């Protein structure tokens, strides 16, 4: 027989990991309850944006503020790493209707 015990163990391990990978993908893919709970809570609260960064209003509810909101807190544009350099003033499409 060409295949030794070590190789057999090795192949079995990788086969197992591959099956585990496929199984994880399938089980995680069918998990849709969470997003419904999220949607309900967002509907109740009615405010956009994630609570990942809560420092101030211009980062917390970024979509509802404008670039000038930064100056509500301080006359200088305060750096909030790493979130504030996400936002490009030229790229901001809000207020263009005005």
């Amino acid at each position, binding site marked *: 027989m060409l295949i030794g015990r070590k190789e057999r163990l090795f192949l079995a391990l990788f086969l197992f990991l591959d099956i585990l*990978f496929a199984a994880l993908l399938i089980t995680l893919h069918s998990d849709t309850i969470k997003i419904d709970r999220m949607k309900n809570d967002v509907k109740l609260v009615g405010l956009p944006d994630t*609570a990942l*960064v809560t420092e101030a209003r211009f980062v917390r509810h970024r979509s509802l503020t404008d670039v000038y909101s930064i100056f509500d807190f301080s006359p200088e544009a305060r750096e909030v790493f790493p979130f504030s350099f996400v936002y490009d003033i030229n790229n901001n499409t809000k207020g263009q209707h005005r």
Partner: protein
Amino acid sequence: MKIGKEFNIFLFSIKLLLKRKSSYYIFLILMVLVFFIASASFITASIKKELILTHEELPDIVIQRVIGGRQQYIPMDYIDKIVSIPGIKSILPRVWGYYYFDYSGVNFSIVGIDPLEPFYKKSLEENIKHIKTDDLIKRDDWMILGNGVRRLFSEIGYVDYAYFKKPNGEYIKLRRFDYLTQESAIFTNDIILISQNTARKLLGMDDDYVSDIVVNVYNKNEVVTIAAKIRDILKDARTVTKKDVLNSYQNVFNYKLGFFITLFGVLIFTMMVIVIDKLGGLSETEKLEIGVLKATGWTTSDVLRLKFYESSFLVLQAFIIGVLLAVIYVYILKAPIMMNIFSGYASLKTEYQLIFAVDFKTLFLIFIAIVPFYIAAIIIPTYRIATLDTYEVFK
């Protein structure tokens, strides 16, 4: 048998792989690289999916009052001015703002809700099980906490009651009524729902003022027109439509993409190093292996097939295991350290629930950047050596 022969070549290639030390290192490096990039892409894909899916639940138009570049509270009688615009389904005044909790140095988002309002009553009953909205109507000193606030309060001993400071320095005592589910923590982590009267007191707002007004419309195609009409009537108003919010989200994704590109650069660089190293010639042991195989009667195509199985097994398994580890790290372990990159420095401590989302484009990009290059980097020098005379190789 043909398949039997191929399988034997495959088994033999595994044997050779296990014998060589360098294959372990290459496997490890590729796996770690794939793991990092795949975890970053899983996190961003999750956040993106959550934002895009929940954005549908937001109100169609938010009316804000901006004077001198600063947002102000809106007088209630603005509602009477816009109520006659055709196509508007509902108008809802909102009271919300921020509360700086200086004991812990965090900002809460205070949202005032009116349990008598049918919209709030309905969504409260949908969201929180066994809630009795009648209790909320009877009294004013209740609060419903987001998950992060709840945890923070229980850490500092605000178990049933919490004290909030009004703008004039007086304190008010609020009783914890309920809390929001942990599943939505990524959106409601810093939210405190209180009654509109209490919110007005905390935010220093008069009774005939609100923070902003939200408008829902019947026909989604009319949103832009109705927003334009509202701006026409209310001269100092700014409207933020659902589309604007989506555009704003897009900016966030651009940044996250930048983070990803940085990692991707590392991957490309590593692959270049591996490929250049391999193209410079195979190692002595590998040369010897090919020489021995040729001497014992293997044809060139057999040797090439052997090397193809060997390299594709190594690189494919490294890819799959890397992605598998990323899935476990992000969705089961909840991305312990990497998530800090995405959240701010003063954020409340949280357990974010990331929903499962795969960015197939990114995974495919990683796959393309690794698998064919590595296989080619093995096959090409092998071909060069295998076509040499056996005597030359041993010399």
